[in-house]
């Protein structure tokens, strides 16, 4: 009787010890079986980010590490290199944020999220910032409980078909009548394409997948006639795929606006301010000609007051925001300005600046003054 009691007690102790450990590695949150664990408050590891009073910024600073929701299947924006590290345009925003908050661009824990799982990940506190080519829409801003930062990439939805099927870059949307169209599940893309097809009176069959890699495979085998998603994703797929030569992207004017940018849980304004001004700092750095190569010279001899303030000199506002004075200096030094990040990840895929140039160069980027 006593022996059984001791055995039970030791087994219980072992179980409790196992449950209490903080074994957290980069996990991939993809299909439904995994998704059921996200909406409950995460146990062991992550905090419940800023919902229990207090701003998310305090939680993140206390933790010392940024939880970043990223894409792992989109070359150029968010993917994994051969070593298994996350790289990409959106990933660099998380790195910049970490550099601003902690002075270390690698103080990030990445969480690969599918399109369908990403919003609950933010709302449940699993990730602090969602940098995963997410479109800023009214319903996401209000109903879904998110706040959005400045758009980092102005994109539009387009289709991709095979030139051997008779498509060309001048094709119109009406030419997809009767086709099987494939796209991602849980995105603005599927809503836009059904609305657009309805408006034109086209009849299409829409298949939505969790993983865009499967969409591409089906497109190559012929099970999908046409593929649709953001134009930048299509360009990146076409550039990296060996069969891409036969593919054409149309229509030349995208069928929808897709302003892509970072998002976080709403009612965390101080955290949001940090994100917003990190983005603006990178764009202002390009405006003022500050690069990762010359940032030390610029710090020593700032050409004007704005650069001085941005890099942490006299009149800087960073410390009042709750981040170190040299936050943006670290961002430019460790990650680079907007142009450097763009050239590093997106130019190799054939994407041009286009709408994503500074307003002075004819684009839409208009960073607010650092004063």
């Amino acid at each position, binding site marked *: 009787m006593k022996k059984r009691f001791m055995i039970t007690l030791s087994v219980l102790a072992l179980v409790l010890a196992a449950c209490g450990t903080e074994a957290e590695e980069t996990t991939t949150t993809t299909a439904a079986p995994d998704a059921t664990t996200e909406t409950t408050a995460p146990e062991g590891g992550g905090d419940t980010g800023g919902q229990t009073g207090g701003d998310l910024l305090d939680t993140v600073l206390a933790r010392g590490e940024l939880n970043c929701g990223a894409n792992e299947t989109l070359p150029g924006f968010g993917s994994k290199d051969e070593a298994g590290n996350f790289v990409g345009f959106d990933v660099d925003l998380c790195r910049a944020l970490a550099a601003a908050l902690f002075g270390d661009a690698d103080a990030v824990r990445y969480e690969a999220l599918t399109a369908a799982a990403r919003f*609950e990940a933010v709302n449940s506190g699993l990730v602090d910032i969602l940098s995963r080519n997410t479109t800023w829409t009214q319903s996401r801003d209000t109903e879904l409980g998110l706040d959005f930062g400045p758009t980092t990439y102005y994109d539009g939805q387009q289709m991709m078909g095979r030139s051997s099927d008779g498509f060309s870059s001048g094709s119109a949307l009406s030419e997809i009548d009767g086709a099987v169209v494939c796209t991602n599940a849980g995105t603005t893309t599927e809503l836009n394409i059904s609305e657009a097809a309805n408006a034109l009176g086209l009849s299409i069959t829409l298949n939505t997948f969790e993983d865009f890699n499967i969409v591409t495979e089906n497109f190559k085998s012929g099970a999908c006639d046409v593929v649709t998603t953001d134009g930048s994703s299509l360009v990146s797929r076409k550039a990296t795929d060996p069969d891409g030569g036969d593919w054409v992207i149309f229509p030349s004017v995208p069928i929808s606006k897709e302003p892509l940018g970072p998002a976080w849980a709403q009612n965390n304004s101080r955290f949001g301010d940090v994100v917003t001004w990190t983005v603006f700092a990178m764009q202002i750095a390009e405006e003022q000609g500050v690069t990762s190569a010359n940032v030390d010279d610029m710090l020593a001899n700032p050409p004007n007051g704005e650069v001085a303030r941005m890099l942490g000199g006299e009149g800087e506002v960073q410390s009042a925001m709750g981040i170190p004075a040299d936050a943006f200096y670290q961002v430019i030094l460790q990650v680079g300005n907007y142009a450097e990040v763009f050239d590093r990840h997106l130019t190799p895929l054939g994407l041009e600046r286009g709408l994503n140039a500074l307003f002075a160069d004819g684009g839409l980027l208009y960073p607010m003054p650092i004063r």
Partner: protein
Amino acid sequence: MSTDLRTPRAEQRPPLWRNATFLKWAAQLLVLAGLVGLAVILGLQASGNLAAQGRTFGWGFLSRPAGIQIGEGIFTFPANGFQVLQTGAVNMLRITVSGIIAATVLGVVVGVSRLSANWLLNRIATVYIEIIRNIPLLVQIVFWFFVATLTFPNVTVDQEGAQWLIVSNKGVSIPWLFPTDTFWQWAVFAVGGLIAARSVYKQRVRRLEETGSDTYPGRYAFLTFVGFVIVGWFAHPIAGALGWVWQLLAAIVSTVPALGWQLLLAAVSVYLGIRWIRRFLDSLRSPAGLAKLTDDDWFRIGLAAALGLLGAFVFLFLPSITASLADLVEFVLRFFDQKFDFLRTGNPLRFARPDVVLPGRFPQIGTSGMTMTPAFFGVWIGVTLYTAAFIGEVVRGGVLAVPKGQTEAGLALGLRRSQLLRMIILPQAFRIILPPIGNQYLNLAKNTSLGIAVAYPEIVAVGFTLANQTGQAMQTFLIWIVFYLIISLGLSSVVNYYNRRLALVER
């Protein structure tokens, strides 16, 4: 008076804190309070968190347009969130039902093959089971999906027009018999045929037992059924008169005022409770009088009374429930009314061959013929093969559990092995294999949720998309839970019913 030791005199009763009866009840009530308290705490926590995020907990998203288009199902352009979930649910049931049937057939074949004396058959079945059981189901489903989309050929333009079989990466299409709008009228004759066949069967079996001569009950019953079916094929317009019955019932349901239905349902609820209690008490009555009621009996009586009163309360004071029930009944009656029309003619079944159409630039599989999309193919084949492997092992276990003496006796009587299996072994094995097979059916029903990986729009996949687009994740989860609970409880109650009927009657 004091010979009954279970009810001691007052001065002999132990104090309250040592009183076994009191402690039992107190413990149960405490646990109940604890559970309710836990549920309340969790609920408050959840609503608090949602409020902090600025989100609301509402069911409005079910009636608002969803903007989603679904690849296949009853509503490919759902008008609201509820229709989205309906489509998903029907898609899930399609795979569940067809999967259960296919898996059972294949499973029994595989299980019996594994016991066969034929070495090749034996080995093939063993290899099949061992391989399929040890690979995760998700991998298998994705594998079959890729087989369907990557290896099957494209639909080509020169196939345009009616075909006999289309195998392509956009789907597999076969010829099929489709019900037309006179199908239900014909079905009435078929049902009548089943009833007639059953009575013919019983009659002939009775004659067989009385006289001992060959009366072939099975054949006669089958011929009766076929006769009714053939007569019905030509005479079904007469059955259309049933439409008037449905119309009458629907009119009754709609004209009786709501209050009338409420009172009726409340009275029925109370009556059922009283009837249950009386029957229960009668079952405990013996010629010596009513047996002493134990705590358990009191609890059951109390529960029955509480449920009866609760039902009455709900029906009397929540009119919306009665109204929705009445609407539902009326909907069903009008649905049937639509299917029947006096002197409506036409063949009840329509044979259609698959065809290839060219609606735009791309050849597609047309809507005639029965089409299986690659996603459906992947999920169906995957779950069928997987569950069949497990069912095969269960069947094998059941057959091996039948005592060997039965086989030997049967062989000694000169029965062939197939007769032995069919008439002696399998009926006895059935009792043993039924509970585990019920288990496998439940597994199959739940495994269909893996369809999300291959874009099969079943309820988890469409619910996920809906939750993502509307932000109502918690409500969607609740709906999933309730749906799967209903399906699982339904399946297991059917299996349990057969289980009880097969139970050995002990003396």
